[in-house]
């Protein structure tokens, strides 16, 4: 079982407390943007997701804990969490991810 660091609780907690919540940094367009979008563009927002082999930015929910959603960079091959961070923080750059990795 993985131990996941919740950035809100600032604690490593067992995986069973968390739920995966899909890819991160997909911003919901506002009303005006939605209306300006073609069906194809809207479908892309709804359904199309990256299928990364390697470092993936994704959302997790501390469902059986503090109830907060947060973001994480996780390696989809090793399953290892590289970093978790709060919603609203910018998507980390590759350089930043590499820095986190080497700091581990």
């Amino acid at each position: 079982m993985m131990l996941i660091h919740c950035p809100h609780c600032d604690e490593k907690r067992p995986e069973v407390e968390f739920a995966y919540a899909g890819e991160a940094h997909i911003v919901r367009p506002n009303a005006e943007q939605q209306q300006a979008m073609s069906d194809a563009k809207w479908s892309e927002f709804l359904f199309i997701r990256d299928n990364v082999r390697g470092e993936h930015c994704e959302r997790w929910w501390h469902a059986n804990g503090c109830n907060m959603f947060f973001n994480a960079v996780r390696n989809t091959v090793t399953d290892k969490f590289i970093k978790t961070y709060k919603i609203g923080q910018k998507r980390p750059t590759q350089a930043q991810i590499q820095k986190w990795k080497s700091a581990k």
Partner: protein
Amino acid sequence: MSDFRRQNRGNVDNNTKVNFTFDGKTYSGLKGDTVASALLASGVHLMGRSFKYHRPRGPVGAGFEEPNALVTVHRGKGRMTPNLRATTLEIYEGMDVRSQNKWPNLKFDIGGFNNIFSPLFPAGFYNKTFMWPKSFWDKVYEPFIRNAAGLGPAPKEVDPDVYGSCYGHCEVLIVGAGPSGLAAALAAAKKDQRVILVDENARLGGSLLSSGEVAIDGKPASEWLTKTIMTLEAAKNVRIMRRTSAFGYYHDNFVALAERITDHIPNAQIGQVREVMHRIHAGQVILAQGAIERPLVFNGNDRPGVMLASAAQSYMGRYGVAVGKEVIAFTSHDSVYGAVFDLADSNIRVGAIVDARASVSKDLLAMAQAKGIDVHVGSVISKTTGKTRINSAEVYNPATGQKTKIKCDALLMSGGWTPSLHLWSQSKGSIKWDVETGVYLPDVANENCVCIAACNGDFGVETALNAGSKAGGGRKKYDVTEAEWGSGEIFDQLPNYITPKKTKAFVDFQNDVTNKDIILAVQEGFKSIEHVKRYTTNGMATDQGKLSNLNALEIAAKALGKEAPKVGLTTFRPPYTPTSFGAFCGYRTDDLFEVTRKTTIDPWAEAQGAVFEPVGVWRRAWYFPKDGEDMHAAVARECKATRDSLGIFDASTLGKIEVVGPDAAKFMNIMYTNPWSKLAVGACRYGLMLGENGYIYDDGVVGRIAEDRFHVTTTTGGAPRVYRHMEDYLQTEFPELDVWLTSTTEQWSVIALNGPNARKLIESFVEDIDLSPEAFPHMAVREGKICSVPTRLFRVSFSGELGFEVNVPSHFGRQVWETLFEAGQKYDITPYGTETMHVLRAEKGFIIVGQDTDGTVTPQDAGMSWIVSKKKKDFVGKRSLQRTDLVAEGRKHLIGLLTDDPKVVLEEGAHIVADPTQSVPMDMLGHVTSSYWSESLGKSVAMALVKDGFNRMDDTLYIPMPGGVTHAAKVVKPVFYDPKGERLNVV
């Protein structure tokens, strides 16, 4: 004392006899024996039959890697465990052990004719057989295979034993208590940290229990062992777990252990915990699992009496048991010499050592000569004889062509050593091929984990002790006197003068896979080792290929003309050894298998004799039968009573979410299709929620309790996902909104009162609320008191009748329910369950999300466009509703169906067609979603999702059923009862 037992050898108690039965016959062994050692001491090698050919088999090993000696142990009713390894089962007085996979008995087995016809059972036999006509498979092959083959029978009764489950934490987890594991534990114990040392055996010591003369720091190994165990047992920070298998290695050093507690105890009582599954989080894991000796693949290598040299040494060292009176060894590795000398010193006649290698070290040859043992260098065993036990072997020298027959009653083989990488690989540590020794070794760790000593390819006791000490963080260097470990050679094929057609050299003993099967698989085009494995079933037996994987790899690689590492190794997966289902379940059986949620009113319903149904994890009263009524009669009565006078229903399971805050209305506008800003305080509104994809996600009535407070209800099953859905949008898309969400499902008991007398009933109990129709209209909510307790009283109706939903704090639920029920007697108040609730709502055409919708239904499809705001700029799902395919013609619509024969109640889920005479497969238009007998209307009513349904009003459609009956039904609007809604306004 039998001829096969050596006094004062091994860790058995020579003074305590233990009697047990094997296939009904009584044998006696000594305390400390395993089933295998006790049987071998009695001269019995035949312990099982192989899976496919039913060949007679004896133990090959002496431990958990054993593929052959699988037995069933009976411990009373429901306590039968199949496929246990006789080599690891400790005997106890009265133990009932039975062999498997034989009929009528072990010595004479009819299934053995599979063996004679074995050319008919080549590699891929199962796959190929599946290709034959299906009828043949069902009627001929499968019954035959099921009867003739197979492992032990699965138990058919409920297991009455109790299993435990617990978590554990430690800084250092050491798997394996051989010399390296013990030295690691000693070193780690000296630091201020928690250490767990596990070993699958009853005795700690590993190879030290059976190695020849070894001295550690100048003292006999056995002395060191005793002292070490005492030291570790005395250390408060060390936990020693015997009879415990580490079988699974998961993320973040999470290791699963199965501890067997009572299987070795006579008369273990039911209620005593039989096994415990430990889930350990470890800071560091030290894998000290050793290596497993590799069998040699030669003609006749599966005859009872043929076993690993290390196994023979174990039987002598651990149990004082000689595996034979005159033995032959066949090897390609130096380590066998030490084992054989040890046996010779234990008064076993060694007829010969046959060494497949072209040359052997002079020292070894000299030592053999000194003990009077012939060594046949550059020779092989070309065949063996003996029906249920080996009685001779033929030595063949390919260089000279010379053949020599040697009598023997056991043949010890050694093809070198395979480090145990199972857990290491499960941890996703990488492995690398070692060209010199022809094995895979650990490479780069993925977790905080090290593999030490023999499971790292480093052999010898001194090496092991020093590796252990270092891994445990110690600096101690051990000084050991021991025989040299030496080296070996790997042979993928051993030479033989006999044509391959007439030989049988087994690679996987349990699954009867021969070298020919693997070559055949390659010839038939299988190139990946994973495919070869599945096609031949090599390594797929309960031993998980512990003995066979590397031999299979060598043979496949040779056949493919590739280097072994280019062919690769099959993936190691948990469990490392077979683990009982009981251990996995732990205490989570029966009532603890799954949570059952009950309302506070549930016990009342139970006392009334309600029949219950599960709804999600809730248990809900389904109907309340009276005087032997069946469900149909009970529901008809409940419906009529509710429509005529008064029904009472426990609606507490409704999901409830309190949406609170200055921006609550704004948030509701986003989450629901309809508008909320102008909803007056004290008013209710039905709300429809969509997913962002535009499909109906949930629904429910919402009451505005205050400007900044909404009491939201959801479907019973949908509460958790609706809550999550709301939290998701609130936290991640609209964090600027000042809103709090609280799940209040269990805070409120909800008593639904429906029927013309509903108001009359509550009038005398309600305080601080004006119940008059003018002051308290339909779709309103008031706060006040009922039966002297606080209430949120909703005037809503899911039945079409005058209705109230009485919300009171949960702990008052039953009290209020009973008060109302008592007072309601004068109105013939009738408790009803979910079935009647469904009938009443279906008569009104109210949908149940998840029953009448299926995740692909839009509000338009459900005929609910009226609830979708055109003015709101944004709500979840709005943009999707404009997608071309969601506004396209010809989508499935929710319509009503009235059967031509009003007595026919359609089956929910039944398919609907326009023309029942068309050929199969028919063009299906949709399916029935809800269907009930309506007592009030005297006919059946149904709802259905039908392609283009709104444009088929008054058409007749058909519902063909299995058995040839076809029902006809007319398409109507899905409102069957009181379409104008007049009954809500009863004064």
